[in-house]
C-alpha cells in the first residue's frame, strides 16, 4: 500500500475533482461533432504560427481524430474520477492532476494536428508529461529509473521522427498532412523514401512499444495505476498507432511498409502474449497484453485492404475499452487487498461485486466472447488477416495464437481472483468506494453495449475513422454475425485453444519462465549497457576536460585560437613582412624600445614594485603614442586611468603575499606557457601585419566627420560620437562601471559582516 499514504487532512481536493470537468466537456463537445463528421468528413481550423518556417497551427477533426478524441477524453474523464479516489490523501495529488490533464491536452492536440511539425511538438509534450506521470512516485528509485527509461526510449524515437518529418518537408515542400496525400507518388519514388520510412517508424515503434523497443512499457508500470490505465490503454502508446494510421495513405502501401509492419507487429504480438502468460503480477500481465495488442494493431496497419484497416481501428477501440477497465480493476484489487500477486488473490468477487462485474465484462470482451465488442473485433481481425498482402499466413497465425493466449490471460486475470477459492488476503477485502468501481464498470458496460449494436458503432465511429485514412468504396459495417465462414471457424479454434491454455496454465507458465530466463540477450540489457557506457564516457571526459586547472583551460582555449586563426591567416597568405607607413622618428623608436623593456621587466621580475613600474612604462608609452597620432582625448584618459590602475594595484598588492615566495613551475609547464604565449603574440603581430596592407574603410568615420557639427553641433568628433551618436553605448559603459563598483563594494562589505 505504498502508493497511498495516510490521509492528510490539509490537502485540498477540489482542484483535482474539478479538473474532471475538462475531459468531460471536451468529450461532450466532441460527441456533438459526431453527426457532422459522419456526414461531411472533417472540420478544420488554422492560423499562422511560425510562418517563416512554414509551420501553421493547423488542426483538423476528421473521423480518425474524432475516434481518438472520444477515447482520450472519455477514458480521461473516468480515470480522473478514479484517480481522485485512488490517490486520496496523497500530498501531491493536485500536481498529479496538472500532469494528467496536461498530458490529456497534449494527446488531444496530437491527434488534431494537421501540420507535421505541430504534431511533433505535441508528440514531445506527451513524452514529457508521461515522464512526469510515470515518475510521479518520485521517492522511489524504480519509478525514477522507469520514467527516465520511457523518456529516453520514446524521446530518442521522437528525435528520429523529427528527422523523418523534416525529410518529408524537404521532398514535398509541405508539412500539412492533408496536402501530403497529393504527394504520395513523389514520396514513394524518391530515393529518400527508405530513410524517411525508417525515421518515422522508429518514432512510432518506440512510442507504441513495438519489439525491440517494447521493454519500457512494462517498466512504466511503476506509475500509479490510474496512469497505467490512461497511458497504456487509451493514449500514450496509441500515439504511435495513430501516427501509423495517419501516415498510411502517405507512406503506406509499399512493400517495405507492409513487410516491416506485419513482421514487427506479429513478433511484438506473440512476444507480448507469451510473456504475459509467464507473469504473475496482475499489472505486469496487463502491461504485456498491451504490448501484444499494440503489435496486433501495427500488424493490421501494415495491410492495405479495407478489412485489415477496419480490424486495426476496431481493435483499437475494443482494446482501449477493456484494457482501461482491467487496469482500473487491478488497481482496485491492489487498493483493497494490498497485493497484485495472482496467487495471493482469490474469491474476492462476493466482497467486491461491482469490481467483479466490471472485471468480468472487460475480460469477456478481451477474450472475444460473442455479444461483446471484442468478439466483433476478433472476427474482423481474422477477416483482415486473411486478406493481408504480405505474409497472410504469418498474420493469421500471430493473430490466432495471440488471441488464444489473450483469452487464457483474460480468464486468469479476471476470473481467478474473483471466483476462485478465498485466500487469506481476500477475507479482509471490502468493496472500494464508488468512484473506484464506477469507471471500470462504465467502460466494461460500454464494451458489452457496443457489442450489441455493432452496426451503430461502425456507422458512427469506426467507418468515419477508417475512411479518414483509407479511401475506399467498400462497405465498412460491423456485424454481430457474418455467417459461417473462415473467421468464425478461426474464432472457434481460438476459444478452444484459449481454454486449453487456461487449463494448462501452470505448466505453461513454468515452461515459459524457463524459456524466458534462458534468453541470453534482452533489449533491456542493451539499454542498461548503453546508459552505463554513456555515463562512463561522460565521467571520463569531464575528468579529462574539466579538471579544475586554470592553466589547462587557458592553454586549450588560447592554443585552439592560435592554431585556428593562425592557420586560416597562413592559408590566406595575406601577411606581408616589411616596413610600411610613415617612418618611425628616433625619439618614438626609443619609446617603443622602452615599452619592450617594460614588458620584459614585468614578465621576468619577481618584485612587485618593479613590475608595477614596468606596467607604468607601458601605460605611459601608450598614452604618448595616442597623443602623437592625433588622439589627445584618448591619451589623457589613458594617462589618468593608468595612474589610477597603478595606485589601486599598489594598494591591493601590498596586502597580498609577495611573488618572490611563489614557487616556480616545472620546465615542461614553463616551455608550454612560453610556446602558447609566443604563439599568441605572433598571431597578433601577424594579424596586424595583414591589416596594415588593407585600405582603412573610413565610410563611418566620414559620416561622423560630416555630421558632427551640422547635426550634433559639436566640434570634437570623438566626444560627439560618445555622448551623442552612440550615447546609448556610453550609457551601457556607465552601467558596467557602476555594476563593477557595486560588486566590488559588496565583496568588501561581505567580508566585514562575516568577520
Amino acid at each position, binding site marked *: 500500500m505504498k502508493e497511498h499514504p495516510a490521509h492528510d487532512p490539509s490537502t485540498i481536493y477540489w482542484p483535482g475533482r474539478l479538473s474532471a470537468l475538462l475531459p468531460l466537456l471536451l468529450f461532450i463537445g466532441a460527441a456533438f461533432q459526431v453527426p457532422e463528421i459522419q456526414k461531411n468528413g472533417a472540420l478544420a481550423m488554422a492560423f499562422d504560427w511560425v510562418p517563416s518556417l512554414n509551420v501553421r497551427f493547423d488542426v483538423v477533426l476528421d473521423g480518425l481524430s474524432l475516434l481518438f478524441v472520444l477515447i482520450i477524453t472519455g477514458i480521461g474523464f473516468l480515470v480522473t474520477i478514479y484517480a481522485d479516489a485512488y490517490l486520496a490523501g496523497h500530498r501531491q495529488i493536485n500536481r498529479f492532476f496538472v500532469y494528467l490533464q496536461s498530458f490529456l491536452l497534449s494527446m488531444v492536440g496530437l491527434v488534431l494536428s494537421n501540420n507535421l511539425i505541430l504534431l511533433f511538438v505535441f508528440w514531445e509534450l506527451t513524452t514529457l508529461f508521461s515522464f512526469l506521470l510515470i515518475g510521479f512516485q518520485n521517492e522511489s528509485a524504480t519509478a525514477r529509473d522507469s520514467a527516465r527509461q520511457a523518456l529516453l526510449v520514446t524521446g530518442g524515437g521522437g528525435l528520429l521522427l523529427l528527422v523523418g518529418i523534416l525529410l518529408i518537408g524537404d521532398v514535398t515542400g509541405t508539412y500539412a498532412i492533408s496536402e501530403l496525400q497529393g504527394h504520395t507518388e513523389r514520396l514513394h519514388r524518391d530515393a529518400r523514401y527508405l530513410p524517411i520510412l525508417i525515421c518515422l517508424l522508429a518514432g512510432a515503434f518506440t512510442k507504441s512499444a513495438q519489439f525491440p523497443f517494447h521493454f519500457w512499457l512494462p517498466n512504466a508500470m511503476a506509475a500509479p495505476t490510474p496512469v497505467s490505465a490512461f497511458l497504456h490503454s487509451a493514449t500514450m502508446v496509441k500515439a504511435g498507432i495513430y501516427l501509423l494510421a495517419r501516415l498510411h495513405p502517405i507512406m503506406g502501401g509499399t512493400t517495405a511498409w507492409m513487410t516491416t509492419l506485419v513482421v514487427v507487429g506479429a513478433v511484438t504480438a506473440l512476444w507480448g502474449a507469451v510473456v504475459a502468460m509467464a507473469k504473475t503480477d496482475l499489472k505486469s500481465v496487463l502491461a504485456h497484453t498491451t504490448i501484444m495488442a499494440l503489435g496486433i494493431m501495427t500488424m493490421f496497419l501494415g495491410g492495405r485492404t479495407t478489412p485489415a484497416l477496419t480490424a486495426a481501428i476496431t481493435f483499437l477501440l475494443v482494446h482501449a475499452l477493456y484494457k482501461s477497465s482491467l487496469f482500473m480493476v487491478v488497481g482496485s484489487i491492489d487498493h483493497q487487498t494490498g497485493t497484485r500477486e495472482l496467487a495471493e488473490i482469490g474469491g474476492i468477487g462476493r466482497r467486491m461485486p461491482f469490481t467483479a462485474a466490471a472485471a468480468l465484462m472487460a475480460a469477456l470482451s478481451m477474450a472475444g466472447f460473442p455479444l461483446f465488442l471484442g468478439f466483433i473485433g476478433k472476427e474482423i481481425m481474422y477477416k483482415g488477416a486473411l486478406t493481408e498482402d504480405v505474409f497472410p499466413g504469418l498474420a493469421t497465425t500471430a493473430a490466432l495464437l495471440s488471441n488464444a493466449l489473450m483469452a487464457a490471460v483474460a480468464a486468469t486475470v479476471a476470473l481467478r481472483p474473483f471466483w476462485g477459492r478465498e485466500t487469506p488476503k481476500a477475507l479482509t477485502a471490502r468493496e472500494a468506494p464508488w468512484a473506484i468501481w464506477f469507471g471500470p464498470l462504465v467502460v466494461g458496460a460500454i464494451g458489452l453495449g457496443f457489442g450489441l449494436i455493432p452496426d451503430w458503432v461502425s456507422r458512427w465511429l469506426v467507418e468515419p475513422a477508417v475512411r479518414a485514412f483509407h479511401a475506399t468504396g467498400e462497405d465498412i459495417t460491423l456485424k454481430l454475425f457474418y455467417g459461417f465462414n473462415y473467421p468464425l471457424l478461426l474464432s472457434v479454434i481460438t476459444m478452444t485453444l484459449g481454454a486449453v491454455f487456461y487449463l494448462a496454465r501452470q505448466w505453461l507458465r513454468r515452461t515459459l519462465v524457463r524459456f524466458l530466463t534462458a534468453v541470453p540477450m534482452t533489449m533491456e540489457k542493451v539499454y542498461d549497457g548503453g546508459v552505463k557506457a554513456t555515463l562512463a564516457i561522460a565521467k571520463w571526459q569531464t575528468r579529462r576536460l574539466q579538471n579544475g586547472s586554470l592553466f589547462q583551460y587557458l592553454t586549450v582555449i588560447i592554443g585552439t585560437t592560435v592554431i585556428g586563426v593562425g592557420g586560416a591567416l597562413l592559408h590566406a597568405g595575406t601577411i606581408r613582412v616589411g616596413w610600411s*607607413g610613415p617612418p618611425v622618428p628616433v625619439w618614438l*623608436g626609443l619609446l617603443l624600445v622602452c615599452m619592450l623593456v617594460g614588458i620584459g621587466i614585468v614578465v621576468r621580475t619577481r618584485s612587485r614594485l618593479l613590475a608595477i613600474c614596468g606596467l607604468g612604462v607601458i601605460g605611459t608609452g601608450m598614452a604618448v*603614442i595616442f597623443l602623437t597620432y592625433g588622439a*589627445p582625448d*584618448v591619451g589623457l584618459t589613458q594617462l589618468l586611468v593608468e595612474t589610477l590602475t597603478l595606485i589601486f594595484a599598489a594598494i*591591493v598588492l601590498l596586502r597580498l603575499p609577495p611573488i618572490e615566495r611563489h614557487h616556480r613551475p616545472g620546465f615542461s609547464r614553463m616551455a608550454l606557457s612560453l610556446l602558447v604565449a609566443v604563439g599568441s603574440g605572433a*598571431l*597578433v603581430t601577424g594579424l596586424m601585419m595583414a591589416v596594415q596592407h588593407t585600405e582603412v574603410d573610413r565610410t563611418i568615420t566620414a559620416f561622423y566627420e560630416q555630421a558632427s557639427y551640422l547635426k550634433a553641433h559639436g566640434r570634437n568628433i570623438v566626444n560627439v560620437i560618445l555622448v551623442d551618436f552612440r550615447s546609448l553605448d556610453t550609457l551601457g559603459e556607465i552601467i558596467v562601471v557602476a555594476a563593477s563598483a557595486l560588486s566590488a563594494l559588496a565583496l568588501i562589505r561581505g567580508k566585514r*559582516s562575516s568577520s
Partner: protein
Amino acid sequence: METALAIVSGSMVAGGIYLLLSQNLVRILFGLIMLSNAVNLVIFTAGGLTHTKPALIEVGRSVPGTAVANALPQALILTAIVIGFALLVFMFVLFYRSYESLGTIDTRQMTKSAPEKPHATDTTTARQEAGS
C-alpha cells in the same frame, strides 16, 4: 610605424598571456592589465596612423578642413579603456577577497569552491542572516 606597433602589441600579448598562464594571482593581474593595453593598441593601430591631426573641427567650419585622425577607433578605445578599468578594479577586489578566504594566491590550491567543513556552518548562518 605600423609594423613597429605590430611588434610591440604582439609582445604585449605574448607577455600578457605568459603571465596569465602563471599560477600566481598577482602575475595574472599584471597579465590582464597588459592584455587590455595591448588590445587598445591593436584597435588604435588598425584604424590607421596616416593622419596625425586630432579629429577636431575648427571654429568657422562645419566639417574638418584637412584630413584628420580616424575618430571611430578613438571612440571605441575610450569606451574600452574605461570598461577595462572598471573590470580591473573588480578583479583587484575579487582576488584580494579570495586570498583572504582561501589564504593562498596560487591558483592550483584554489580548487575548493566551498570552504572546509568547520566554515560551512558559518556560511549557512551568514546566508540565513542575509535572507532574513
